[in-house]
């Protein structure tokens, strides 16, 4: 084992200087974004848009944690590739499974689920469901 390897100060893919300021800024951003998502939830944005907004803010927060607290910002490609690839498969499992229930003949879904085509439309667009639900048309 060559001694010269041991004498090199270990470099961890980021510079040796302190990152404290960066961490504090990220923490502040996370706090603000948390307050933001909580505030927006009070507006009760209807249907799919509300979910989308919440997930978008969560993604930004998650991205900040991954990039800066977990140092993906200053590390090698392999780690980033692993993280991003896992996200692709998260989307795949959730997406295609949801697509099944969303595109089924409504009676093939659990009986008291709200999945007639009209109900699905209402859920996504956020309009009020009618007092007497219409029979499922297919």
């Amino acid at each position, binding site marked *: 084992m060559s001694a010269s390897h041991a004498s090199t100060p270990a470099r961890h893919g980021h510079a040796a200087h302190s990152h404290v300021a960066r961490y504090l800024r990220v923490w502040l951003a996370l706090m603000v974004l948390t307050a933001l998502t909580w505030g927006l939830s009070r507006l009760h944005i209807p249907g799919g848009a509300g979910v989308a907004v919440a997930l978008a803010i969560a993604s930004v927060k998650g991205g900040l944690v991954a990039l800066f607290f977990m140092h993906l910002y200053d590390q090698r490609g*392999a780690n980033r590739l692993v993280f991003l*690839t*896992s996200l692709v*498969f998260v989307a*795949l*499992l959730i997406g*295609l*499974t949801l*697509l*099944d*229930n*969303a*595109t*089924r*003949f409504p009676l*093939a*879904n*659990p*009986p*008291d*689920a709200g999945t007639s085509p009209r109900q699905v439309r209402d859920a996504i667009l956020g309009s009020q469901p009618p007092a007497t639900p219409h029979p499922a048309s297919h």
Partner: protein
Amino acid sequence: MSPLPASEAPVYAERNYLNTPATGLRSWLTTLDHKRIGVMFLIATTIAFATGGFFALLIRLELLTPGPTIVDAMTYNRLFTLHGVVMIFLFMIPAIPSGFGNFLLPIMVGAKDVAFPRLNLLSFYLYLLGAVIALWGMIHGGADTGWTFYTPYSTTTPTKVVPILLGAFVLGFSSILTGLNFIVTTHTLRAPGITWNKLPLFVWSIYATSIIQILATPVLGMTLLLVAVEHAFGWGIFDPARGGDPVLFQHFFWFYSHPAVYIMILPAMAVISEVVCAFSRKNIFGYKAVAYSSLGIAFVGFFTWGHHLFTSGQSAYNAGVFGVLTMFVGIFTAIKIFNWVATLYKGSISFKTPFIYFVGFLFFLFFGGMTGVALATVSLDIHWQDTYFVVAHFHFIMVGSTMMGFLAALHYWWPKITGRMYNERWGLVAAVFVILGFIFTFLPQFLLGNEGMPRRYFNYPERYWALNVASTAGASVLAIGFTIVLVYILVALRHGEVAGPNPWGSRGYEWLTASPPPLENFEEVPEFRRGPHEYHDLPGEAAAPAAGAAPGASHV
């Protein structure tokens, strides 16, 4: 390195991993040497294979007559469940990667060990723990749900499904740790000169397998846990009576289990890529195509799970999507088959036992794969789903391809692992039994399935009798073949001819070191200048090996 001159007798390496740093059970059970761990996995998975095979023989015996033959219906349900669970989780998933992969991968990248040797040992103990938990469940009656554990039956059956689920959960961790180790080893421990484009094709396929293990297994873990929780506590995630969707279980289960079949076939393909080059003494045709198609299978394999749900109540839209995506994954296997066959062209074929298994592998992968594409056609699957057609399809791949790959690996690398050659004539005899036995076991099952015989059925109408008898007869021949292999391979441990570092004259990197290898794999790590499957001589190298060329030459 050039093959040895005929005059030089092969040498058995006296100080090797089998006796360094110590001998005795304790040194093996606490080893951190990837080669010993690989050997222990091979032994354990072989015992598992024998167990699963025993269940298979009981199944085939029961199906010898249309009515009850040797067991009752409830027992029969447990038999096919345990056959599936043992074969898949205790043999097919771990055998080639954790057995041969562990032994060979570090050597093939010029490393001294895997990246995390202690995690490697842990993965072995997790395998044993999972096996013991599942075994406990089996002894206490086992499960009768099929290895697929479909809800709502699996959440309500009175049989011992929970220990089997937990055993499989623990086995999943073993699988994850192996995959993790291999990926990190491939990224960080390659010797100088072994670039990504000079990686042996075995490593590429094992690497792809490892990606699947990392990404898919956790989903299975969660799914099995959910079933266990629902079975134990009745929380109702998959229970229609509580508003749950039983098909949701199938989505989660097959999200793992379809990529799992690629965990089972990719390592066999890894072996075949090595064997085809060594036994045609020719560089692989289309290295990049073969290498990248492994990654293709690994990724695209994740997009296809819904083809298991064609008749389960999935939306027609989803069925269409999955049907098309499933067609795509066949392309990569086709690429491989084309390239392997093209490698044979103008090669110098050596018709030894590993090559015979390659031939079997080729035909059965081709045929089995084609029936897979046929099954991916939704309209055809309506007729074939849950019949013996499906059973035959996956056994063609799992036994006809993966098992043949395992046997090819066993014979190809036996001299490297043990330092001794097996008896080639017995190898041929056993291969004939295995291949013929295989054909007679599973080809009739395609016909049975197409005629409408359902799978997992304890009884059948008389018109299926003849083909079932044929299938059982084939299974007996297959069992005899495997037994013959076991006998002569064990005999070879004591009485086999000394193999020397490279009895096959192969250009693979693992043949650059002694047989059996020393503790740290290479006495001196070679300079890797040529590719791992290069059989032409570099300029300046003599066509005939120089007299007195020593084994373990320091450069290739």
